[in-house]
Protein backbone atom coordinates (compact mmCIF):
# COMPACT_ATOMS: atom_id res chain seq x y z
CA UNK A 1 0.00 0.00 0.00
CA UNK A 2 1.25 3.38 -0.97
CA UNK A 3 0.08 6.72 0.38
CA UNK A 4 -0.08 9.55 -2.17
CA UNK A 5 -0.55 13.24 -1.48
CA UNK A 6 -1.24 13.64 -5.19
CA UNK A 7 -2.38 10.79 -7.37
CA UNK A 8 -3.08 11.22 -11.06
CA UNK A 9 -4.68 8.66 -13.34
CA UNK A 10 -3.72 9.46 -16.90
CA UNK A 11 -0.68 10.73 -18.70
CA UNK A 12 -1.75 13.17 -21.33
CA UNK A 13 -2.45 16.90 -21.57
CA UNK A 14 -4.67 17.17 -18.48
CA UNK A 15 -2.21 15.16 -16.42
CA UNK A 16 0.70 17.29 -17.57
CA UNK A 17 -1.28 20.42 -16.82
CA UNK A 18 -2.01 19.09 -13.35
CA UNK A 19 1.66 18.43 -12.65
CA UNK A 20 2.43 22.02 -13.66
CA UNK A 21 -0.42 23.30 -11.49
CA UNK A 22 0.73 21.32 -8.47
CA UNK A 23 4.34 22.29 -8.90
CA UNK A 24 3.45 25.96 -9.20
CA UNK A 25 2.59 25.96 -5.50
CA UNK A 26 3.95 22.77 -4.02
CA UNK A 27 7.46 21.87 -4.94
CA UNK A 28 7.90 19.21 -2.26
CA UNK A 29 5.21 16.58 -1.94
CA UNK A 30 5.52 13.69 -4.37
CA UNK A 31 3.15 13.23 -7.28
CA UNK A 32 2.18 9.73 -8.30
CA UNK A 33 1.01 9.16 -11.84
CA UNK A 34 -0.54 5.92 -13.08
CA UNK A 35 -1.21 5.36 -16.74
CA UNK A 36 -2.46 2.43 -18.76
CA UNK A 37 -0.25 3.22 -21.70
CA UNK A 38 3.39 2.54 -21.15
CA UNK A 39 4.76 5.50 -23.13
CA UNK A 40 6.29 8.55 -21.64
CA UNK A 41 3.79 11.39 -21.91
CA UNK A 42 3.18 11.93 -25.59
CA UNK A 43 1.04 14.07 -27.77
CA UNK A 44 -2.05 12.26 -28.87
CA UNK A 45 -2.80 14.44 -31.89
CA UNK A 46 0.65 13.62 -33.21
CA UNK A 47 -0.25 10.04 -33.99
CA UNK A 48 -1.43 10.94 -37.47
CA UNK A 49 1.92 12.60 -38.13
CA UNK A 50 3.67 9.55 -36.72
CA UNK A 51 1.66 7.33 -38.95
CA UNK A 52 2.48 9.51 -41.93
CA UNK A 53 6.13 9.39 -41.01
CA UNK A 54 6.30 13.13 -40.60
CA UNK A 55 7.49 12.80 -37.04
CA UNK A 56 9.55 10.05 -35.56
CA UNK A 57 9.00 8.37 -32.24
CA UNK A 58 11.39 10.70 -30.46
CA UNK A 59 9.31 13.68 -31.38
CA UNK A 60 6.13 12.20 -30.04
CA UNK A 61 7.01 13.23 -26.54
CA UNK A 62 4.87 16.00 -25.23
CA UNK A 63 7.30 16.76 -22.44
CA UNK A 64 11.07 16.38 -22.20
CA UNK A 65 12.53 13.04 -21.16
CA UNK A 66 13.45 14.31 -17.71
CA UNK A 67 10.01 15.74 -17.09
CA UNK A 68 9.00 13.26 -14.41
CA UNK A 69 12.32 13.42 -12.63
CA UNK A 70 12.50 17.16 -12.73
CA UNK A 71 8.99 17.53 -11.37
CA UNK A 72 9.21 14.84 -8.70
CA UNK A 73 6.68 12.62 -10.42
CA UNK A 74 6.63 8.91 -9.70
CA UNK A 75 5.29 7.61 -13.00
CA UNK A 76 3.80 4.12 -12.99
CA UNK A 77 3.32 3.49 -16.69
CA UNK A 78 1.68 0.54 -18.33
CA UNK A 79 -0.37 -0.02 -15.20
CA UNK A 80 -4.13 -0.04 -15.43
CA UNK A 81 -6.31 1.28 -12.64
CA UNK A 82 -9.18 -1.07 -12.06
CA UNK A 83 -11.08 0.59 -9.30
CA UNK A 84 -11.44 3.77 -7.37
CA UNK A 85 -12.76 3.43 -3.84
CA UNK A 86 -14.08 6.86 -2.99
CA UNK A 87 -14.82 5.95 0.61
CA UNK A 88 -11.51 4.35 1.38
CA UNK A 89 -9.82 7.01 -0.75
CA UNK A 90 -7.84 4.39 -2.53
CA UNK A 91 -7.13 3.18 -6.02
CA UNK A 92 -6.56 -0.41 -7.02
CA UNK A 93 -4.52 -1.47 -9.99
CA UNK A 94 -4.56 -4.48 -12.24
CA UNK A 95 -1.44 -5.90 -10.62
CA UNK A 96 -3.19 -5.89 -7.20
CA UNK A 97 -1.59 -2.81 -5.72
CA UNK A 98 -3.58 -0.30 -3.73
CA UNK A 99 -2.74 3.38 -3.50
CA UNK A 100 -4.36 5.59 -0.96
CA UNK A 101 -4.53 9.23 -1.87
CA UNK A 102 -5.19 12.60 -0.40
CA UNK A 103 -5.96 14.16 -3.76
CA UNK A 104 -6.86 12.24 -6.86
CA UNK A 105 -7.13 13.44 -10.42
CA UNK A 106 -9.02 11.38 -12.96
CA UNK A 107 -7.63 12.23 -16.38
CA UNK A 108 -8.50 9.13 -18.26
CA UNK A 109 -9.48 10.97 -21.40
CA UNK A 110 -11.70 9.51 -24.10
CA UNK A 111 -12.32 6.19 -25.67
CA UNK A 112 -12.97 5.68 -29.36
CA UNK A 113 -16.42 4.67 -30.37
CA UNK A 114 -16.73 1.50 -32.42
CA UNK A 115 -20.05 0.35 -33.78
CA UNK A 116 -21.16 -2.52 -31.63
CA UNK A 117 -23.72 -4.03 -33.97
CA UNK A 118 -21.46 -4.37 -36.99
CA UNK A 119 -19.85 -7.71 -37.53
CA UNK A 120 -16.24 -7.82 -38.56
CA UNK A 121 -14.91 -5.06 -36.41
CA UNK A 122 -12.64 -7.56 -34.75
CA UNK A 123 -11.10 -8.60 -38.08
CA UNK A 124 -7.45 -7.84 -38.79
CA UNK A 125 -7.01 -4.57 -40.61
CA UNK A 126 -9.76 -2.84 -38.68
CA UNK A 127 -8.54 -0.14 -36.35
CA UNK A 128 -9.49 2.79 -34.27
CA UNK A 129 -7.03 5.69 -34.20
CA UNK A 130 -6.52 7.45 -30.90
CA UNK A 131 -3.32 6.12 -29.37
CA UNK A 132 0.33 5.77 -30.12
CA UNK A 133 -0.24 2.05 -30.04
CA UNK A 134 -2.97 2.40 -32.70
CA UNK A 135 -0.53 4.27 -34.92
CA UNK A 136 2.15 1.67 -34.39
CA UNK A 137 -0.24 -1.15 -35.10
CA UNK A 138 -1.60 0.45 -38.27
CA UNK A 139 1.91 1.18 -39.46
CA UNK A 140 2.97 -2.37 -38.76
CA UNK A 141 -0.08 -3.71 -40.55
CA UNK A 142 0.58 -1.56 -43.58
CA UNK A 143 4.18 -2.66 -43.69
CA UNK A 144 3.23 -6.25 -43.20
CA UNK A 145 0.42 -6.50 -45.75
CA UNK A 146 1.24 -3.78 -48.20
CA UNK A 147 -2.07 -1.96 -47.93
CA UNK A 148 -3.14 -0.36 -51.20
CA UNK A 149 -6.60 0.84 -50.40
CA UNK A 150 -8.15 2.13 -47.23
CA UNK A 151 -11.52 3.27 -46.00
CA UNK A 152 -11.83 5.70 -43.17
CA UNK A 153 -15.17 5.82 -41.48
CA UNK A 154 -15.85 9.26 -40.10
CA UNK A 155 -15.23 12.66 -41.67
CA UNK A 156 -14.35 14.43 -38.48
CA UNK A 157 -10.97 15.64 -37.33
CA UNK A 158 -9.48 12.26 -36.46
CA UNK A 159 -10.86 10.77 -39.61
CA UNK A 160 -9.43 13.43 -41.85
CA UNK A 161 -6.06 13.43 -40.10
CA UNK A 162 -5.86 9.68 -40.67
CA UNK A 163 -6.87 10.21 -44.30
CA UNK A 164 -4.06 12.72 -44.61
CA UNK A 165 -1.59 10.25 -43.12
CA UNK A 166 -2.75 7.47 -45.39
CA UNK A 167 -2.55 9.71 -48.44
CA UNK A 168 0.98 10.60 -47.46
CA UNK A 169 1.80 6.93 -47.42
CA UNK A 170 0.42 6.63 -50.95
CA UNK A 171 -2.65 4.66 -50.01
CA UNK A 172 -5.78 5.18 -52.02
CA UNK A 173 -8.30 6.33 -49.47
CA UNK A 174 -12.02 6.78 -49.23
CA UNK A 175 -13.59 8.68 -46.43
CA UNK A 176 -17.13 7.76 -45.52
CA UNK A 177 -19.23 10.18 -43.55
CA UNK A 178 -22.70 9.51 -42.31
CA UNK A 179 -23.65 13.17 -42.30
CA UNK A 180 -24.23 15.05 -45.51
CA UNK A 181 -20.82 16.67 -45.31
CA UNK A 182 -17.47 16.26 -43.67
CA UNK A 183 -16.47 18.13 -40.50
CA UNK A 184 -20.17 18.70 -39.93
CA UNK A 185 -19.80 19.33 -36.23
CA UNK A 186 -17.32 22.20 -36.59
CA UNK A 187 -17.89 23.54 -40.09
CA UNK A 188 -20.78 24.94 -42.01
CA UNK A 189 -21.76 23.80 -45.46
CA UNK A 190 -19.49 26.21 -47.28
CA UNK A 191 -16.44 25.28 -45.29
CA UNK A 192 -17.20 21.61 -45.60
CA UNK A 193 -17.56 21.99 -49.33
CA UNK A 194 -14.23 23.75 -49.56
CA UNK A 195 -12.57 21.03 -47.52
CA UNK A 196 -14.23 18.32 -49.60
CA UNK A 197 -13.15 19.93 -52.81
CA UNK A 198 -9.64 20.23 -51.49
CA UNK A 199 -9.58 16.57 -50.45
CA UNK A 200 -10.94 15.48 -53.78
CA UNK A 201 -8.31 17.51 -55.52
CA UNK A 202 -5.76 15.71 -53.40
CA UNK A 203 -7.15 12.41 -54.68
CA UNK A 204 -9.26 11.40 -51.74
CA UNK A 205 -12.69 9.97 -52.37
CA UNK A 206 -15.26 11.59 -50.13
CA UNK A 207 -18.54 9.82 -49.60
CA UNK A 208 -21.08 11.61 -47.51
CA UNK A 209 -24.57 10.71 -46.33
CA UNK A 210 -23.73 7.08 -46.08
CA UNK A 211 -21.89 4.67 -43.90
CA UNK A 212 -20.49 1.19 -43.76
CA UNK A 213 -23.22 -1.40 -43.57
CA UNK A 214 -20.99 -4.45 -43.66
CA UNK A 215 -17.35 -5.36 -43.40
CA UNK A 216 -16.10 -7.85 -45.88
CA UNK A 217 -13.41 -10.13 -44.58
CA UNK A 218 -11.38 -12.96 -45.84
CA UNK A 219 -9.33 -15.09 -43.55
CA UNK A 220 -10.33 -12.78 -40.73
CA UNK A 221 -8.73 -9.98 -42.64
CA UNK A 222 -10.65 -7.04 -43.97
CA UNK A 223 -10.98 -6.92 -47.75
CA UNK A 224 -13.64 -4.32 -48.26
CA UNK A 225 -16.76 -2.62 -47.07
CA UNK A 226 -20.26 -2.40 -48.27
CA UNK A 227 -21.92 0.92 -47.91
CA UNK A 228 -25.48 1.61 -46.96
CA UNK A 229 -26.23 2.78 -50.50
CA UNK A 230 -25.27 -0.64 -51.69
CA UNK A 231 -21.98 0.23 -53.24
CA UNK A 232 -18.81 -1.53 -52.31
CA UNK A 233 -15.29 -0.39 -51.72
CA UNK A 234 -12.34 -2.66 -51.64
CA UNK A 235 -10.19 -1.94 -48.58
CA UNK A 236 -7.11 -3.54 -47.05
CA UNK A 237 -7.44 -1.24 -44.13
CA UNK A 238 -10.45 0.10 -42.30
CA UNK A 239 -10.25 2.81 -39.70
CA UNK A 240 -13.14 3.76 -37.49
CA UNK A 241 -12.99 7.38 -36.53
CA UNK A 242 -16.59 8.04 -35.70
CA UNK A 243 -15.97 9.74 -32.40
CA UNK A 244 -14.59 9.58 -28.94
CA UNK A 245 -16.53 9.27 -25.69
CA UNK A 246 -15.32 10.24 -22.24
CA UNK A 247 -13.82 7.24 -20.51
CA UNK A 248 -15.91 7.53 -17.37
CA UNK A 249 -15.96 3.87 -16.38
CA UNK A 250 -13.79 4.21 -13.26
CA UNK A 251 -15.70 7.25 -12.05
CA UNK A 252 -19.10 5.79 -12.69
CA UNK A 253 -18.17 2.58 -10.85
CA UNK A 254 -16.99 4.48 -7.79
CA UNK A 255 -20.18 6.49 -7.49
CA UNK A 256 -18.81 9.79 -8.72
CA UNK A 257 -21.49 11.84 -10.49
CA UNK A 258 -21.33 11.36 -14.24
CA UNK A 259 -23.51 12.51 -17.10
CA UNK A 260 -21.96 12.61 -20.56
CA UNK A 261 -18.71 13.09 -18.80
CA UNK A 262 -17.66 13.45 -15.20
CA UNK A 263 -19.30 16.42 -13.54
CA UNK A 264 -17.03 18.91 -11.82
CA UNK A 265 -17.23 22.29 -10.21
CA UNK A 266 -15.15 25.32 -11.20
CA UNK A 267 -12.23 23.92 -9.26
CA UNK A 268 -12.44 20.72 -11.34
CA UNK A 269 -13.48 18.81 -8.25
CA UNK A 270 -15.96 15.98 -8.74
CA UNK A 271 -18.89 15.19 -6.55
CA UNK A 272 -16.43 13.58 -4.17
CA UNK A 273 -14.22 15.91 -2.18
CA UNK A 274 -10.58 15.52 -2.97
CA UNK A 275 -11.26 13.76 -6.24
CA UNK A 276 -10.74 15.89 -9.30
CA UNK A 277 -11.24 15.27 -12.97
CA UNK A 278 -9.90 17.03 -16.05
CA UNK A 279 -9.55 16.67 -19.75
CA UNK A 280 -11.63 14.80 -22.26
CA UNK A 281 -13.21 12.74 -19.49
CA UNK A 282 -15.18 15.61 -18.02
CA UNK A 283 -18.07 17.61 -19.24
CA UNK A 284 -17.70 21.29 -18.93
CA UNK A 285 -19.63 24.45 -19.52
CA UNK A 286 -19.77 25.58 -23.10
CA UNK A 287 -19.20 29.26 -22.55
CA UNK A 288 -21.20 30.17 -25.61
CA UNK A 289 -24.28 28.02 -25.20
CA UNK A 290 -24.12 27.58 -21.45
CA UNK A 291 -24.71 23.86 -21.98
CA UNK A 292 -22.78 21.23 -20.07
CA UNK A 293 -20.97 18.90 -22.45
CA UNK A 294 -17.60 17.42 -23.13
CA UNK A 295 -15.38 19.73 -25.13
CA UNK A 296 -12.53 17.37 -25.89
CA UNK A 297 -9.86 19.70 -27.11
CA UNK A 298 -6.27 19.93 -26.02
CA UNK A 299 -6.11 23.50 -24.69
CA UNK A 300 -9.12 22.78 -22.46
CA UNK A 301 -7.55 19.61 -21.13
CA UNK A 302 -4.30 21.37 -20.39
CA UNK A 303 -6.04 24.24 -18.65
CA UNK A 304 -8.41 22.08 -16.68
CA UNK A 305 -5.53 19.92 -15.53
CA UNK A 306 -3.64 22.99 -14.45
CA UNK A 307 -6.64 24.32 -12.54
CA UNK A 308 -7.20 20.96 -10.89
CA UNK A 309 -3.54 20.77 -9.94
CA UNK A 310 -3.60 24.21 -8.36
CA UNK A 311 -6.72 23.40 -6.37
CA UNK A 312 -5.24 20.09 -5.24
CA UNK A 313 -2.50 22.05 -3.47
CA UNK A 314 -5.11 24.01 -1.54
CA UNK A 315 -4.80 27.16 -3.61
CA UNK A 316 -7.83 28.48 -5.42
CA UNK A 317 -8.19 28.75 -9.16
CA UNK A 318 -11.32 28.42 -11.25
CA UNK A 319 -12.10 27.03 -14.69
CA UNK A 320 -15.26 28.63 -15.90
CA UNK A 321 -15.79 26.64 -19.04
CA UNK A 322 -14.50 26.31 -22.53
CA UNK A 323 -15.21 27.08 -26.08
CA UNK A 324 -15.16 24.47 -28.76
CA UNK A 325 -12.44 25.23 -31.20
CA UNK A 326 -10.21 23.40 -33.54
CA UNK A 327 -7.35 24.05 -35.81
CA UNK A 328 -6.59 21.46 -38.34
CA UNK A 329 -4.46 21.33 -41.39
CA UNK A 330 -5.93 18.87 -43.86
CA UNK A 331 -3.49 17.85 -46.52
CA UNK A 332 -2.06 21.37 -46.50
CA UNK A 333 -5.35 23.22 -46.17
CA UNK A 334 -5.22 25.13 -42.94
CA UNK A 335 -8.53 25.57 -41.16
CA UNK A 336 -9.67 27.01 -37.88
CA UNK A 337 -13.11 26.91 -36.38
CA UNK A 338 -14.13 28.48 -33.14
CA UNK A 339 -17.41 28.53 -31.22
CA UNK A 340 -20.78 28.55 -32.90
CA UNK A 341 -19.98 28.20 -36.55
CA UNK A 342 -23.30 27.20 -38.01
CA UNK A 343 -26.16 28.48 -35.92
CA UNK A 344 -29.40 26.87 -36.93
CA UNK A 345 -31.60 29.30 -35.11
CA UNK A 346 -32.56 32.94 -35.52
CA UNK A 347 -30.90 35.90 -33.87
CA UNK A 348 -27.48 35.50 -35.36
CA UNK A 349 -25.74 37.77 -37.78
CA UNK A 350 -23.37 36.28 -40.28
CA UNK A 351 -20.48 37.97 -42.03
CA UNK A 352 -18.73 35.85 -44.53
CA UNK A 353 -16.47 36.02 -47.51
CA UNK A 354 -15.64 33.08 -49.67
CA UNK A 355 -13.20 32.57 -52.48
CA UNK A 356 -13.98 29.14 -53.78
CA UNK A 357 -11.29 29.28 -56.42
CA UNK A 358 -8.60 30.39 -54.04
CA UNK A 359 -9.91 28.02 -51.43
CA UNK A 360 -10.33 30.64 -48.75
CA UNK A 361 -13.25 31.33 -46.53
CA UNK A 362 -13.82 33.57 -43.60
CA UNK A 363 -17.01 33.54 -41.63
CA UNK A 364 -17.83 35.47 -38.51
CA UNK A 365 -20.94 34.64 -36.52
CA UNK A 366 -22.31 37.42 -34.34
CA UNK A 367 -25.02 37.55 -31.74
CA UNK A 368 -26.04 40.70 -29.92
CA UNK A 369 -23.09 42.55 -31.44
CA UNK A 370 -20.66 40.00 -30.08
CA UNK A 371 -18.65 37.48 -32.01
CA UNK A 372 -19.72 33.95 -31.06
CA UNK A 373 -18.11 31.91 -33.76
CA UNK A 374 -15.72 31.97 -36.67
CA UNK A 375 -14.45 29.79 -39.44
CA UNK A 376 -11.26 30.31 -41.34
CA UNK A 377 -10.31 28.14 -44.25
CA UNK A 378 -7.20 28.59 -46.31
CA UNK A 379 -6.32 31.94 -44.81
CA UNK A 380 -6.04 31.60 -41.04
CA UNK A 381 -3.60 34.34 -40.11
CA UNK A 382 -4.42 36.13 -36.85
CA UNK A 383 -7.54 34.06 -36.29
CA UNK A 384 -6.72 34.09 -32.57
CA UNK A 385 -7.81 37.71 -32.37
CA UNK A 386 -11.35 36.47 -33.08
CA UNK A 387 -10.97 33.73 -30.50
CA UNK A 388 -10.13 36.47 -28.05
CA UNK A 389 -13.15 38.51 -29.08
CA UNK A 390 -15.34 35.44 -28.57
CA UNK A 391 -13.83 34.58 -25.19
CA UNK A 392 -13.98 38.11 -23.89
CA UNK A 393 -17.45 38.77 -25.33
CA UNK A 394 -16.34 42.10 -26.78
CA UNK A 395 -18.95 44.42 -28.23
CA UNK A 396 -17.93 44.77 -31.86
CA UNK A 397 -20.78 46.92 -33.10
CA UNK A 398 -18.32 49.64 -34.10
CA UNK A 399 -16.10 47.37 -36.12
CA UNK A 400 -18.48 45.02 -37.84
CA UNK A 401 -17.51 46.35 -41.21
CA UNK A 402 -13.87 45.64 -40.57
CA UNK A 403 -14.25 42.03 -39.47
CA UNK A 404 -13.77 40.51 -42.89
CA UNK A 405 -11.02 42.87 -43.99
CA UNK A 406 -7.57 41.64 -44.84
CA UNK A 407 -6.13 44.28 -42.56
CA UNK A 408 -8.23 43.36 -39.55
CA UNK A 409 -5.88 43.30 -36.60
CA UNK A 410 -5.26 44.44 -33.09
CA UNK A 411 -5.41 48.02 -34.25
CA UNK A 412 -9.00 47.48 -35.36
CA UNK A 413 -10.07 46.53 -31.86
CA UNK A 414 -11.80 48.96 -29.51
CA UNK A 415 -9.09 50.98 -27.77
CA UNK A 416 -9.82 49.70 -24.28
CA UNK A 417 -9.89 46.10 -25.33
CA UNK A 418 -6.78 46.61 -27.40
CA UNK A 419 -4.94 47.77 -24.32
CA UNK A 420 -6.26 44.74 -22.50
CA UNK A 421 -5.06 42.19 -25.00
CA UNK A 422 -1.64 43.60 -25.56
CA UNK A 423 -1.02 44.25 -21.91
CA UNK A 424 -1.07 41.75 -19.16
CA UNK A 425 1.84 40.40 -17.26
CA UNK A 426 5.12 41.55 -18.65
CA UNK A 427 3.50 43.28 -21.53
CA UNK A 428 2.35 46.77 -22.08
CA UNK A 429 1.41 48.95 -24.93
Amino acid sequence: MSDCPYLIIGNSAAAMGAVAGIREFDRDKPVTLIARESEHAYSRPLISYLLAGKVDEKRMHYRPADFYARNGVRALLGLEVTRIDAQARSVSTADGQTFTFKNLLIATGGRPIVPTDLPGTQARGVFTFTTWEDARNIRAYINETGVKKAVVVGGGLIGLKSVEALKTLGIETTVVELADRILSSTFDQTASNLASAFLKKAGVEVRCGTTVSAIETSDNRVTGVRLRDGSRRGADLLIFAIGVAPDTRLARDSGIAVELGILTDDAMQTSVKGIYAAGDVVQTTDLLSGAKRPIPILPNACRQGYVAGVNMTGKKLAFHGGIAMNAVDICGLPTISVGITDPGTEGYEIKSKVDAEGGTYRKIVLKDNRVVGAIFVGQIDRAGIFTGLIKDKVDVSALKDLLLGEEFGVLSLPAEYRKHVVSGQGIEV
Partner: protein
Amino acid sequence: MKRIVAREEFCIGCRLCEVHCLVQHSKSRKIIKAFRDEREKVVPGIKVESSGHVSFALQCRHCGEAPCIEACMTGAMARDPETGVVLSDPDKCVGCWMCIMVCPVGAVARGANQQVASKCDLCIGVATPVCVANCPNEAIVLEEDDE
Protein backbone atom coordinates in the same frame (compact mmCIF):
# COMPACT_ATOMS: atom_id res chain seq x y z
CA MET B 1 12.49 39.12 -17.74
CA LYS B 2 12.78 41.71 -20.42
CA ARG B 3 9.63 43.14 -21.76
CA ILE B 4 8.93 45.03 -24.89
CA VAL B 5 6.75 48.05 -24.57
CA ALA B 6 5.18 49.38 -27.72
CA ARG B 7 4.44 53.08 -27.66
CA GLU B 8 1.63 53.49 -30.09
CA GLU B 9 1.74 57.27 -30.02
CA PHE B 10 5.25 57.28 -31.46
CA CYS B 11 4.98 54.52 -34.03
CA ILE B 12 5.58 56.14 -37.40
CA GLY B 13 4.58 53.11 -39.42
CA CYS B 14 7.87 52.88 -41.26
CA ARG B 15 8.09 49.12 -40.74
CA LEU B 16 11.82 49.15 -40.23
CA CYS B 17 11.18 46.76 -37.34
CA GLU B 18 9.78 44.23 -39.77
CA VAL B 19 12.70 44.77 -42.10
CA HIS B 20 15.29 44.25 -39.40
CA CYS B 21 13.42 41.33 -37.86
CA LEU B 22 13.44 39.61 -41.19
CA VAL B 23 17.14 40.26 -41.61
CA GLN B 24 17.98 39.05 -38.12
CA HIS B 25 16.12 35.80 -38.68
CA SER B 26 17.43 35.25 -42.16
CA LYS B 27 20.23 32.87 -42.84
CA SER B 28 22.76 35.43 -43.98
CA ARG B 29 21.71 38.25 -41.68
CA LYS B 30 22.80 40.58 -44.47
CA ILE B 31 20.02 42.89 -45.36
CA ILE B 32 20.29 42.97 -49.12
CA LYS B 33 20.93 39.26 -49.41
CA ALA B 34 18.16 38.52 -46.95
CA PHE B 35 15.65 40.43 -49.02
CA ARG B 36 16.94 39.40 -52.40
CA ASP B 37 17.55 35.72 -51.88
CA GLU B 38 15.85 34.71 -48.66
CA ARG B 39 12.84 36.93 -48.43
CA GLU B 40 10.35 34.14 -48.94
CA LYS B 41 11.99 32.04 -46.27
CA VAL B 42 11.41 34.29 -43.31
CA VAL B 43 8.30 35.79 -41.81
CA PRO B 44 9.00 38.71 -39.48
CA GLY B 45 7.99 38.07 -35.89
CA ILE B 46 6.77 41.62 -35.59
CA LYS B 47 3.95 43.20 -37.47
CA VAL B 48 3.11 46.82 -37.94
CA GLU B 49 -0.57 47.56 -38.10
CA SER B 50 -1.67 50.88 -39.54
CA SER B 51 -4.94 52.66 -39.76
CA GLY B 52 -4.88 56.26 -40.86
CA HIS B 53 -2.15 57.98 -38.90
CA VAL B 54 -2.28 55.46 -36.09
CA SER B 55 0.02 52.53 -36.25
CA PHE B 56 1.93 50.27 -33.98
CA ALA B 57 4.22 47.34 -34.04
CA LEU B 58 3.17 44.20 -32.32
CA GLN B 59 4.98 41.02 -31.63
CA CYS B 60 4.46 38.11 -29.28
CA ARG B 61 3.70 39.42 -25.82
CA HIS B 62 5.34 36.41 -24.19
CA CYS B 63 2.28 36.20 -21.99
CA GLY B 64 2.55 35.04 -18.43
CA GLU B 65 -0.17 32.40 -18.94
CA ALA B 66 0.43 31.84 -22.57
CA PRO B 67 -2.55 30.30 -24.38
CA CYS B 68 -0.31 29.14 -27.19
CA ILE B 69 1.70 26.96 -24.82
CA GLU B 70 -1.47 25.40 -23.44
CA ALA B 71 -2.80 24.82 -26.92
CA CYS B 72 0.33 23.34 -28.39
CA MET B 73 -0.01 19.65 -28.88
CA THR B 74 3.61 18.89 -29.54
CA GLY B 75 5.30 20.88 -26.84
CA ALA B 76 6.96 22.93 -29.56
CA MET B 77 5.61 26.10 -28.03
CA ALA B 78 7.31 26.36 -24.68
CA ARG B 79 8.65 28.88 -22.24
CA ASP B 80 12.39 29.07 -21.97
CA PRO B 81 12.91 28.36 -18.28
CA GLU B 82 15.84 30.75 -18.00
CA THR B 83 14.62 33.79 -19.85
CA GLY B 84 10.88 33.34 -19.63
CA VAL B 85 10.66 33.87 -23.37
CA VAL B 86 8.00 31.89 -25.19
CA LEU B 87 9.68 30.05 -28.03
CA SER B 88 8.40 27.89 -30.82
CA ASP B 89 10.66 24.97 -31.67
CA PRO B 90 10.47 24.45 -35.44
CA ASP B 91 11.77 20.91 -35.08
CA LYS B 92 8.83 19.94 -32.91
CA CYS B 93 6.10 21.95 -34.58
CA VAL B 94 3.90 20.05 -37.01
CA GLY B 95 1.89 23.02 -38.17
CA CYS B 96 -1.47 22.27 -36.59
CA TRP B 97 -2.05 26.01 -36.08
CA MET B 98 -3.60 25.68 -32.65
CA CYS B 99 -1.34 28.49 -31.51
CA ILE B 100 -2.62 30.76 -34.27
CA MET B 101 -6.13 29.89 -33.19
CA VAL B 102 -5.60 30.96 -29.59
CA CYS B 103 -3.22 33.90 -29.76
CA PRO B 104 -5.36 36.93 -28.90
CA VAL B 105 -2.97 39.38 -30.56
CA GLY B 106 -2.36 37.35 -33.67
CA ALA B 107 1.33 37.21 -33.03
CA VAL B 108 1.94 33.70 -34.36
CA ALA B 109 2.16 33.26 -38.07
CA ARG B 110 2.61 30.37 -40.42
CA GLY B 111 6.27 30.35 -41.27
CA ALA B 112 7.51 31.22 -44.70
CA ASN B 113 7.26 27.60 -45.92
CA GLN B 114 3.78 27.30 -44.38
CA GLN B 115 4.96 24.27 -42.46
CA VAL B 116 5.65 25.47 -38.94
CA ALA B 117 4.64 28.30 -36.67
CA SER B 118 6.82 31.37 -36.55
CA LYS B 119 6.90 34.07 -33.94
CA CYS B 120 9.05 36.59 -32.09
CA ASP B 121 11.90 35.02 -30.14
CA LEU B 122 13.01 38.33 -28.60
CA CYS B 123 16.17 37.92 -30.66
CA ILE B 124 17.69 35.38 -28.36
CA GLY B 125 21.40 35.90 -28.02
CA VAL B 126 21.23 39.55 -29.00
CA ALA B 127 21.41 42.07 -26.18
CA THR B 128 18.67 44.24 -27.62
CA PRO B 129 16.07 42.84 -29.97
CA VAL B 130 16.65 44.27 -33.41
CA CYS B 131 13.19 45.78 -33.62
CA VAL B 132 13.96 47.80 -30.50
CA ALA B 133 17.46 48.68 -31.58
CA ASN B 134 16.38 49.84 -35.01
CA CYS B 135 13.19 51.68 -34.26
CA PRO B 136 14.02 55.23 -35.32
CA ASN B 137 11.48 56.75 -32.98
CA GLU B 138 11.86 54.52 -29.93
CA ALA B 139 8.29 53.41 -30.34
CA ILE B 140 9.38 49.92 -29.36
CA VAL B 141 11.37 49.90 -26.17
CA LEU B 142 12.80 47.16 -24.08
CA GLU B 143 12.31 47.33 -20.38
CA GLU B 144 13.69 45.13 -17.71
CA ASP B 145 10.83 43.76 -15.68
CA ASP B 146 11.58 43.93 -11.99
CA GLU B 147 8.97 41.41 -11.07
